């Protein structure tokens, strides 16, 4: 199919891929898009068919949901998108939606004459990528192809991220590749990948996995060198190329520096003012919400998104980052990772993105970057450095609850894996919010975007963004070296959001043991939960949980403090889900828990601190997270200051946990409060 071919190009875009891939799509696209329409009303069905045909789509009609499902099952790759009515006699439209999401992972658009808010919300929570009110106009149908592209992008990213970033979490790339090529899996994302462009993906994966590009771990020294170079050049004039020259580190590529710079900029931005971020985050958050619910890749998406959100991340880099880092599924996750804050970025990069990929495009590493994006980098440079350190240590521990904002920075730095992320990070720009959506492939990845956005706003939540991603999605992310930076972010989240924290928490969950455990349970969810939870505090409102539940910062804050010990996997998951339901309070608790659980390895005391920070952060975050809400910059800064105190703890924690970094990425997403995040 043309579409697939065209779309395939998406996957190939290792660099700036995500964004460009869309462009590369076949010229005929969206003509030929294979649509399956399900509606028991024959009149509507006929009208829809005619409208879709007029749009040059290839239409298959179905009056019964059961028939639709069997059609889909028989032709696994026979359709690109499904449009279904809500009220059907034989099966509830939402049920069908769930089935499709689980089995085939196709974008599904719901339709109904009912335009009540509850019903629309239900569509969102169940993972519909859009909701049309009857009578449907042809204009509404003309653009449905965007959902297909978006999902593919996210999947692509997820695949890459998951494949590359996490060895343990997801099958190794080689394995993945094999899977893909053999098309043995029915896994949604696998299929998607296949559909898209198996070869490309395989190639990409191969490269990343087989070549084992060395990830750039932004150690403290390296980061200090970086900062020195930046200061020497002047932050405004600091361009990756020059920085690279000044640093004179063999093996370091311009991309590495660029992505790192991005995060760094975000971090600085966070420090200086979060208000911008907030708005950005919100934006990204919203966009990220889209993330498919079930898509595990959501994490990946989120990261990138967050990074994008940070604004600096060019769409392309975001795309690549996402691709690389997203593997985590953040992309898919609609959870915006608000955390993007610098911390996130750093943290993301490490865990999520394929480390050492060095490839911008494959953002595997980028995930971490995302984290940073979202999170306003309030952290001071030194904090960043700390983060680095912590992230590194976190790597192992995911749990590293972002001990101190500063710490998270270093962690984040470490995340550097994803060069592309670096871009994101450097972005610091508050604008990350806007970015996310772009890179994310059009907001399909709510998670990602939100995260990014969050970070920007300085809402700690941004980190959380990751958290929001629906659990399944996040898992990919979480699986990533949660240990990494995510934790850092948590600690260092001065950026205003616990994102750092959340990252950590999520990371914690991931921790090898945890992660696996978590994964099993929710797929990713566990890790996300943590993040989410953390973020939740901030982003609670946004996403997942509540989809619009107002986030009570205060509530969260309290919650956080209380939770300290939730077992990572369990808590996370639970926290997450619970938060969703309860909304805010839970989030806070879950987050707190998540954090704590993550920090299991860490000194208990530290967690407490972190938790507190989170709490503080969260409230702020929550404010910010709300897509609509504009977080107070001041609140964020306050948070940061608190966090800084924690730095020490965090760094200690972080150190313990190596590799927690990646978690940050996830957080980024969490940060965003996605109102619509389908949980």
């Amino acid at each position: 199919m043309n579409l697939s071919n065209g779309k395939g190009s998406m996957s190939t875009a290792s660099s700036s891929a995500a964004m460009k891939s869309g462009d590369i799509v076949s010229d005929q696209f969206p003509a030929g898009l294979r649509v399956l329409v399900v509606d028991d009303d024959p009149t509507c069905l006929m009208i829809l068919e005619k409208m879709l045909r007029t749009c040059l789509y290839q239409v298959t009609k179905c009056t019964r949901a059961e028939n639709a499902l069997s059609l889909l099952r028989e032709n696994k790759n026979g359709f690109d998108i499904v449009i279904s009515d809500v009220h059907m006699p034989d099966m509830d439209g939402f049920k069908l939606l769930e089935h499709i999401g689980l089995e085939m992972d196709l974008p599904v658009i719901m339709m109904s004459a009912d335009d009540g808010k509850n019903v629309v919300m239900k569509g969102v929570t169940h993972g519909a990528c859009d909701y049309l009110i009857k009578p449907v106009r042809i204009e509404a149908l003309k653009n449905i192809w965007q959902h297909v592209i978006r999902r593919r992008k996210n999947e692509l990213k997820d695949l890459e991220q998951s494949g590359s970033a996490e060895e343990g979490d997801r099958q190794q790339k080689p394995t993945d590749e094999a899977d893909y090529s053999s098309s043995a899996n029915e896994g949604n994302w696998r299929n998607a990948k296949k559909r898209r462009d198996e070869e490309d993906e395989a190639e990409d994966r191969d490269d990343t996995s087989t070549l084992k590009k060395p990830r750039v771990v932004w150690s403290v020294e390296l980061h200090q060198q970086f900062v020195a170079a930046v200061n020497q050049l002047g932050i405004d004039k600091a361009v990756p190329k020059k920085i690279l020259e000044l640093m004179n580190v063999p093996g370091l590529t311009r991309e590495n520096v660029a992505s790192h710079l991005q995060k760094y900029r975000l971090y600085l931005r966070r420090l200086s003012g979060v208000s911008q971020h907030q708005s950005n985050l919100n934006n990204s958050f919203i966009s990220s919400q889209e993330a498919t619910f079930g898509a595990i890749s959501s994490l990946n998406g989120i990261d990138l998104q967050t990074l994008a959100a940070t604004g600096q991340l060019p769409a392309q880099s975001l795309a690549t980052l996402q691709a690389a880092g997203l593997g985590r599924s953040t992309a898919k996750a609609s959870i915006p990772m608000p955390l993007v804050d610098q911390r996130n970025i750093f943290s993301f990069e490490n865990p999520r993105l394929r480390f050492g990929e060095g490839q911008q495009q494959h953002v595997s590493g980028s995930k971490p970057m995302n984290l940073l994006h979202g999170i306003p980098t309030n952290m001071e440079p030194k904090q960043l450095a700390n983060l680095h350190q912590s992230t590194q240590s976190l790597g192992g521990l995911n749990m590293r609850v972002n001990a101190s904002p500063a710490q998270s920075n270093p962690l984040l730095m470490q995340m550097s894996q994803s060069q592309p992320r670096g871009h994101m990070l450097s972005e610091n720009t508050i604008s990350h919010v806007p970015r996310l959506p772009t890179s994310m492939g059009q907001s399909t990845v709510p998670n990602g975007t939100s995260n990014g956005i969050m970070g920007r706003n300085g809402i700690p939540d941004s980190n959380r963004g990751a958290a929001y991603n629906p659990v399944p999605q996040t898992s990919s992310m979480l699986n990533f070296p949660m240990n990494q930076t995510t934790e850092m972010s948590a600690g260092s989240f001065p950026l205003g959001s616990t994102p750092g924290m959340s990252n950590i928490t999520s990371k914690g969950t991931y921790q090898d043991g945890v992660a696996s455990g978590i994964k099993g349970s929710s797929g990713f969810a566990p890790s996300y939960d943590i993040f989410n939870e953390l973020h939740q505090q901030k982003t609670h409102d946004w996403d997942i949980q509540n989809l619009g539940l107002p986030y009570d910062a205060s509530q969260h804050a309290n919650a956080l403090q209380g939770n300290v010990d939730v077992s990572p996997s369990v808590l996370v998951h639970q926290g997450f889900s619970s938060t969703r339901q309860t909304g805010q309070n839970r989030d806070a608790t879950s987050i707190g828990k998540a954090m704590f659980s993550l920090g299991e390895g860490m000194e208990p005391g530290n967690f407490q601190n972190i938790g507190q920070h989170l709490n503080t952060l969260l409230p702020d975050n929550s404010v910010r997270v709300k897509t609509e809400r504009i977080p107070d910059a001041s609140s964020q800064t306050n948070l940061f200051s608190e966090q800084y105190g924690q730095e020490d703890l965090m760094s200690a924690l972080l150190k313990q946990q190596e590799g927690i970094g990646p978690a940050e990425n996830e957080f980024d997403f969490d940060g965003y409060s996605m109102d619509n995040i389908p949980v």
Partner: protein
Amino acid sequence: MDRNQSRRQIAAMKQSLFDQGYLDEQFIQLEELQDDANPNFVEEIVTLYYRDSSRLISNIEQAIREKNPLDFNKLDNIMHQFKGSSSSIGAKKVKAESTLFREYCRAGNGEGCIKSFQQLKKEHALLRKKLEAYFQMARQAGPLETACGPK
């Protein structure tokens, strides 16, 4: 008959249907879908609609007749479907009446339901007559005059 004249007549008829609120914008959407490949698309759709909606109406009638007290939930469900169909062809008055019916159902107002239902059947039948006349004239005049909505 003069072609132009009949076309004008058809246009006028259509215009009056819009003006009197029988049809709304959605009908224009349908007309715009009509093309050489489906020259009688609108008529086909309307025919399909009446076939299906008549079935729904008799379902409601049966439900009202048989059950006492009324099963509002069931009635509401049927009407929801009916409303969806009606709105997709642009049957404005019919749609409004079905909304009213549903409100009565939700309020548990049996009397209101029945009254509203009677009104709905009237509107439904009236629109059918008007559209049939319209299509007949359109067929006679030729395919050119369709696809122009109310000005």
